[in-house]
């Protein structure tokens, strides 16, 4: 059974007076070879949703199924392994390792994981993202948009079944944004990847197979 499914997922941060419901009774489903967009304003719970969907944090209640397996039941170690092999994150803050060059960010993954993209596939990703010339630079020598594209390439490099991207086009101009979205769409349709893109950019809606709207922690299908 493939696909990613959230059933009645809620997330509550804090307790007492600082108690905050970031997600409430979220139901969500995405199938193989789909590109799904989740749109919502800032603070609506997009990052919370994405990190729960990818097993980076656990929900307060509800189930998260990846390929039919409830990942909330996995141990820390199994969740880490799943992130390495099955789920690729593109995080909002890019999060590159500061003391590794762009190329070494990929080398690091190569050290701990096999079955990454072939050299040819990887080269074409680098070309589409336009970061081939940046391979020997350190993150602090890159612009925001360049870092973002490297972060996307890093998620793709491990060749995961699922790609969860948090505002992957926030720092990109319109041209680049369309290139990145087209790349993701192609990966979904031609390479059978399952892709969730979280964004506040409504212009991206037309690229998606399915769109969810999230407001104040409540999710609904559009």
């Amino acid at each position, binding site marked *: 059974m493939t696909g990613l499914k959230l059933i009645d997922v809620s997330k509550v941060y804090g307790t007492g007076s600082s108690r905050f419901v970031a997600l409430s009774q979220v139901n969500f489903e995405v199938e193989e070879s789909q590109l799904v967009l989740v749109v919502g304003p800032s603070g609506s719970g997009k*990052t919370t949703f994405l*990190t729960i969907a990818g097993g*980076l*944090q656990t929900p307060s209640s509800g189930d998260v199924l990846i390929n039919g397996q409830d990942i909330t039941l996995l141990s*820390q*170690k199994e969740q*880490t*392994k*799943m*992130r*390495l*092999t099955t*789920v690729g*994150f593109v*995080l*909002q*803050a890019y*999060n*590159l*390792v*500061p*003391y*590794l060059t762009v190329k*070494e960010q990929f*080398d*690091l*993954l190569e*050290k*701990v*994981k096999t079955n990454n993209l072939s050299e040819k596939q990887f080269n074409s990703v680098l070309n589409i993202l336009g970061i081939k010339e940046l391979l020997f630079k*350190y993150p602090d020598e890159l612009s925001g948009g360049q870092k973002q594209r490297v972060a996307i390439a*890093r998620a793709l490099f*491990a060749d995961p079944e699922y790609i969860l991207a*948090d*505002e992957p086009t926030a720092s990109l101009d319109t041209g680049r944004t369309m290139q990145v979205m087209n790349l993701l769409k192609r990966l979904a349709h031609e390479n059978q990847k399952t892709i969730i893109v979280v964004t506040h950019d409504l212009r991206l809606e037309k690229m998606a197979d399915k769109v969810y709207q999230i407001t104040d922690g409540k999710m609904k299908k559009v």
Partner: protein
Amino acid sequence: MFLAIKEIKHDKLRYGLIISLIFFVSYLVFVLTGLASGLSNLNKSALEPWHAERIILNKDAQGRLAQSFLPLRDLGKIGNRGAQIAQYSTIVKGKSGQKEENTQLLAVNKDEFIYKRLPLIAGDKFTAEKEALASAKFKTDGYKVGDYFTTANSKEQIKIVGFTKEASLNAAPVVYISFETLGKIDKDVTNGVVLNKKLDKNIKLSDSESYTLTQFINKLPGYSAQQLTFNFMIGFLFIIILIIISIFLYILTIQKLPNFGVMKAQGIPTRYLVLNTLTQTLIISVAGVGVAIVLSILTAVVLPTQVPISISLSSVCVAGTGIILMSLLGSLIPIQQIIRVDPVKMIGG
């Protein structure tokens, strides 16, 4: 290994600082160990080649050879089971203008085991009256085989017929002579008897006491206090190393927690990150200790011979291994931080 090396290369200054810190403290430890063993040699190196078990002294002498007179009664009971010895403190004055040496004259018998075990490095052992076998120290200070010396309070001219390996007792170089020669200089008495095996149980000594050589050494004037001071300082430095490394690595790790969080979010196993930190600690401590080893050995070569420092590769390696182990121990708290870090808290957004 990959991350460890990349990071050190990228943050040369920061890691350079830690390495130099480890270097300085290790160097201090090595020099102190060298001084401790140098001073210890100065007190007792003469005893080493004897390979003796015990020493019998007058029971009122509190374990001190020079203060002890073995009564004839007990000497008779011991018979020829050990080697008689006398210690006489004096000043040696060379007849060819060499510098005066504060010296311990030790009288031993030619047919007993101490004499037989003395290692020669030049000339011969004494065979006749008014002949002497001197410590190598005299050779370094310009005395030669065939040279004559006199001692304080005596006009007897004594001839150096050979040199033995560096031998010193109570912080002064040793000159071996016969009891007859000692009789010419002063009184011919027996201060003690050194044994190379245990004394028969049925020999009951009336006015004497038998000490193990370790007991005897620990009762050498000032010896225990001195060694205790050094051991205390060295032990303290080990604790300091543990604390410094812990604090340094802790701060470094705290600064890097976001990176560790990100790598965990990517699915890099925690074990990989922990091993990496251990490798890094190993690299920096081995580097610091390595430089310190080289430099302390150079120091021992360069320092003037008056400084009683004895730095041997083996002792430095033992202390160095201790320091490296301390460093690894110091990385345990930071490693705990790495295991605990929650990727979600570190990724932002």
